[in-house]
């Protein structure tokens, strides 16, 4: 049973096509990343799923049924920015959220504790820092321990320690079998926590599937010697040579199959070239993403 199934969702704001025929499925138990640069349509897509925006065309099912408010009560959602009543305290704001979700409010102390806000629970929301507001939004999303979480840029406004905590929390929640839909423009965030990913660009779905299939990164070997020009012509004769990525400072060479650095070093020595730099690296995530979005 897919938790969320989108069929041909389109949305236009005046002259801007925010989403264009987007279709994909989020399987149960997945940590599903929606990845894309700012303005790619991630929040618009999640806005449609949560009924704050109306799609121009297309349909979707949520928890294997047509979308309705009762299903949203079973989903914890943080969409775009923390939205709370400024004159209410954190506790009172969570009481409102629990009441809308038709919950008793017994879970409020637990989520405040997870968010690290217990000590400030009776302070007014307007006195909170940006990071505390974001933590409160995460706490609200976790009210009632929902089976599905929708988190739009959940680490926004958090300091490095807060970012690490939230990522750890997401991983812990994923381990308990929850389905998490995570929109982010942060590549490493998606790679670190997601099992599946959909990549959006200018409202179009470019790719979707398991992270290791979508964000394929090629290995390359970085090498240098006293004469890199000669090295370049020699290395192109290597039986496994595929192509050169860069020749600035060091040569960055991609081979058709993995090569053992020691063997490569010996092979270069046999050709009369003594390497002073040899390092096997992975293509950066940014480059892999740019390759996908440029193609």
């Amino acid at each position, binding site marked *: 049973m897919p938790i969320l199934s989108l069929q041909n969702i389109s949305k236009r704001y005046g002259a801007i096509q925010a989403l264009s025929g987007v279709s994909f499925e989020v399987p149960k138990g997945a940590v599903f990343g929606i990845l894309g640069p700012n303005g790619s349509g991630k929040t618009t897509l999640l806005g449609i799923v949560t009924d704050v925006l109306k799609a121009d065309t297309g349909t979707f099912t949520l928890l294997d049924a047509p979308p309705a408010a009762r299903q949203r009560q079973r989903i914890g959602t943080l969409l775009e920015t923390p939205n709370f009543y*400024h004159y209410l305290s954190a506790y009172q704001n969570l009481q409102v959220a629990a*009441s*809308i979700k038709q919950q008793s409010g017994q879970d409020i102390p637990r989520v405040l504790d997870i968010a690290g806000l217990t000590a400030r629970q009776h302070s007014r929301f307007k006195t909170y820092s940006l990071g505390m507001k974001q933590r409160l939004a995460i706490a609200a999303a976790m009210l009632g321990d929902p089976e599905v979480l929708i988190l739009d840029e959940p680490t926004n406004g958090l300091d490095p320690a807060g970012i690490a905590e939230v990522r750890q929390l997401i991983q812990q929640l994923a381990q308990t079998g929850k389905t998490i839909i995570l929109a982010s423009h942060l590549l490493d965030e998606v790679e670190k926590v997601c099992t599946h990913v959909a990549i959006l660009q200018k409202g179009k779905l470019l790719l979707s599937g398991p992270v290791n299939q979508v964000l394929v990164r090629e290995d390359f070997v970085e090498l240098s010697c006293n004469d890199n020009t000669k090295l370049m012509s020699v290395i192109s004769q290597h039986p496994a040579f595929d192509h050169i990525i860069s020749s600035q400072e060091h040569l960055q060479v991609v081979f058709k199959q993995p090569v053992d650095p020691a063997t490569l070093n010996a092979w270069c020595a046999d050709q009369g070239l003594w390497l002073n730099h040899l390092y096997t690296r992975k293509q950066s995530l940014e480059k892999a993403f740019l390759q996908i979005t440029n193609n």
Partner: protein
Amino acid sequence: MLHLIRTEWLKIKPYRAFWVMVGLAVAIIPAGNYIAAEITSQIVSKTKELIAVAPYDFPLIWQSIANVNSYMTALFAIPMIILVTNEFTYKTHRQNIIDGWERREFVLAKLFWWLALSLLAFLTTTITALVLGLAYGTHPLSFENFEYLFYYLLQVLLSLGIATLIAVLVRRSGLAIVLYLCYIMIVEQVLVLVLKRNFGEIGGLLPLQTGDELMPFPVVGKLLNNADHYDDGVYLLILCLYIGLMIFLVFRRMLKTDY
């Protein structure tokens, strides 16, 4: 519906600014009418032979107070506007939907306040009339002419309905309050005068004017009354239709638009 009211209560109970505004509105009604009662009682006592009616005596008091209070509906409309526009300012209208309300439920929750504030205005007016009538009147308590208070309730419902519609359309509290006050104090008054001068009594069918036509001030209203005046039933019907129209437009706006 009880669940909606409970949630709204959680939102508003600690909101001090709202309760101060409501408290002021509730205090201004008896205060304003006390001044009016004092002035009219002096006029009546000094002109006994000329004006034989006492507006703040039973049964005329129901009509007098309905007329006087019809100029003060903004007292309850402003807190209404603030309640609605706060949701847009804090973007909590989005969060309420995200958390699991239907859009229809969000509107119904706001309409609870529309009804509650209108009933509070009605109740405050009724109690004020009873107290002033017993204090200033020479006649015994009478509920004759009490229908004027129901006309007043309908006019408050319409006035708050207009305020709610403006609030959901412009979404900003300051602008919504200015537009609302402009409409009730200037725009409609000018249109009524222009229409009445050029097209006759049809000018009396503009939204808030329908209520004013139903609640003229005793004696003065009769003096100004003209032959073209429609039957009260017409004004009553049109007033109710306007209330329905405002609620329909509020629902339509909130069900269709992006949040």
